[in-house]
């Protein structure tokens, strides 16, 4: 009923109140997530402010968890804005991790080749996902649900068939001296933290094998990746032609197609990007912990979707923001770790998460209706 909305049109309509310009500047997709972030921080400063949660090592702690969520949330966000979603993210994480570990440890490939091959494989699977969705015009829920099972099954099967194990260790040793492995598992700015520790801003270990070193060794590459992907995703979405195509494909694929937007290409690329993010996640994890397990990433697809939805994106596509998704990931990470710092019974975390999700979407829906004139 598109035509019924003319009252919201600009010209001097006596039948509608004007919206104040302050309010107008405020209402943006990520507003809900911004409010949420502020509330969550206030809450935890109040109840866990003195628990070390906001000391440097505490910040690194929840920062890392949030960064993890953010990496997959960026992929899920762009894909969701393009109008699809991917339930196979979690299985993809497990699959990529095992592939890297298998190639390096079991087959003795150089680590950088293993990583590149894993990324290539992930891109191929993402493309297959997207191709099937486009070709059969089935809902992506079904197609990627099938891949959730297929990939997880293959991962377990391959790792058992080749190594008789479902956890493959020894990757760190194999990766030593590799030209690109540090890009995923390393830490940066160690010098800065030594300096900060000398200045007394950051504490030092007083006992144990690392006495004298700063308590924070450096910024994990995971966070750098998260920030890089967020910046990339944000610019891609809001500042480029391709970003406009992503919005268009998710908003109305047919309309976009008719004005010449290559919708299939856009969507397939977004499936590939989502698989790519999952692989980055997996690679960072494998490089940091030195081992890969076939059950990694379980239910991560939901966590990615939840972050994105908390961040204000619309499940049905065409609307959302990467910054919002990143804030969603931050909320997710802070709540999860914050409850630990606050000493709340840890099984209640899930209850909190569910409640926050509900509140966030209700708030976001309200904001979106104001922006888009939707009813």
């Amino acid at each position, binding site marked *: 009923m598109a035509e019924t909305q003319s009252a919201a049109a600009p010209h001097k309509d006596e039948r509608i109140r004007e919206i104040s310009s302050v309010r107008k500047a405020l209402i943006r997709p990520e507003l809900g997530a911004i409010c949420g972030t502020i509330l969550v921080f206030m809450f935890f400063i109040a109840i*866990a402010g003195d*628990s*070390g*949660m906001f*000391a440097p*090592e*505490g910040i690194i*702690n*929840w920062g*890392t*968890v949030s960064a*993890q969520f953010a990496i997959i949330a960026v992929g899920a966000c762009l894909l969701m804005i393009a109008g699809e979603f991917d339930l196979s993210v979690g299985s993809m994480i*497990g699959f990529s991790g095992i592939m890297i570990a298998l190639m390096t440890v079991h087959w003795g490939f150089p680590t950088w080749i293993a990583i590149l091959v894993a990324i290539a494989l992930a891109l191929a699977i993402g493309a297959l996902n997207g191709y099937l969705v486009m070709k059969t015009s089935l809902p992506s829920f079904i197609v990627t649900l099938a891949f959730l099972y297929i990939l*997880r099954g293959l991962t*377990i099967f391959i790792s*058992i068939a080749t190594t*008789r*194990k*479902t*956890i493959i*260790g*020894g990757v760190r040793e194999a990766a030593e001296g590799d030209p690109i492995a540090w890009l995923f598992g390393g830490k940066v700015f160690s010098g800065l933290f030594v300096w900060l520790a000398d200045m007394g801003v950051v504490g030092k*270990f007083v*006992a*144990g*094998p*690392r*006495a004298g*070193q700063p*308590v924070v*060794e450096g910024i994990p590459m*995971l966070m750098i990746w998260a920030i890089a992907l967020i910046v990339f995703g944000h610019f891609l979405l809001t500042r480029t032609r391709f970003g406009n195509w992503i919005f268009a494909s998710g908003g109305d694929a047919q309309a976009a197609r008719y004005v010449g937007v290559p919708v299939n290409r856009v969507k397939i690329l977004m499936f590939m990007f989502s698989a790519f993010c999952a692989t980055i996640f997996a690679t960072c*994890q494998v490089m*940091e*912990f*030195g*081992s890969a*397990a*076939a*059950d*990694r*990433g*379980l239910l*991560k697809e939901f966590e990615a979707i939840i972050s994105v939805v908390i961040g204000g994106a619309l499940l049905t596509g065409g609307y959302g923001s990467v910054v919002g998704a990143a804030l969603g990931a931050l909320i997710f990470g802070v709540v*999860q*770790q914050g409850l*630990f*710092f606050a*000493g709340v*019974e*840890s*099984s209640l*975390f899930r209850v909190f998460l569910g409640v926050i999700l509900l509140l966030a979407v209700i708030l976001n829906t309200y904001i979106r209706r104001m922006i888009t004139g939707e009813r």
Partner: protein
Amino acid sequence: APAAAEGERFVLVSHAPDSDSWWNTIKNAIAVAGEQMNVEVEYRNPPTGDLADMARIIEQATASNPDGIIATIADYDVLSGPISDAVAKGIPVITINSGTIEQSKQLGALMHVGQPEYDAGKGAGEKAKAAGVTQFLCVNHYITNPASVERCQGYADALGVELGNQMIDSGQDPSEIKSKVMAHLQTNPDTNGILTLGPTSAHPTLAALDELGKSGTIHFGTFDISSEIADAIKSDVIAFAIDQQPYLQGYLPVVILTNLARYGVVPGNSINSGPGFVTKDNIALVEEYAGEYR
């Protein structure tokens, strides 16, 4: 003639989800035993670790008329029906891993090869108590599995303290486990004992301790062995690993069932495969085969 009886088919049903790496050792053991005895051994498990599904698998195994069934008693209530049905159908059953010898007897199984979870946890707790642990952290990466809670409970009981929120629901993602352990240790700096329930939680916990600079300063016990855990034992970060010698839990039942089928001989008593405590003293041999046969 014995030779003619070769090629028996046995089924081993575990409660572990697909991805539980600990069971690889048992899978490897049954492969070895199967080859040595020239029998066929199938490994079955519920994909998500749902015990109700496991009961169906035992029923299925029974229906396929194997020459013997090897099963864990992950939950006596759930499995008593299917296992006693199998026994009643005349299929020899050996129970392994979780469960107690009494339960095994009640089910009519030939014998039990294993180590009860609660007692294993308690054993770990006793060692910890001797080392002066007063406040601990039990990293439970699989809180929905009952056996995991029993281990933590046993540990707490041996120390004589309340379990309370010293057991954390860590989830299975390594980064999250690591972060949660770090968060817990930062907010509970008096913690002087850690129990992890397997490599899934032990590896990130090692990383967490390293990053906190607390490696070696906290009494650290774990279940099960892996190469990382072995290294940590050697470098004094982990005090001990409880090894129930899963290899035996897979190997012995196959051998015993084969001999029962061929010659009608069977030992009269249950076998305790563990608890074996792997410490720095006996690590050398363990290490070589960790994750595959140990």
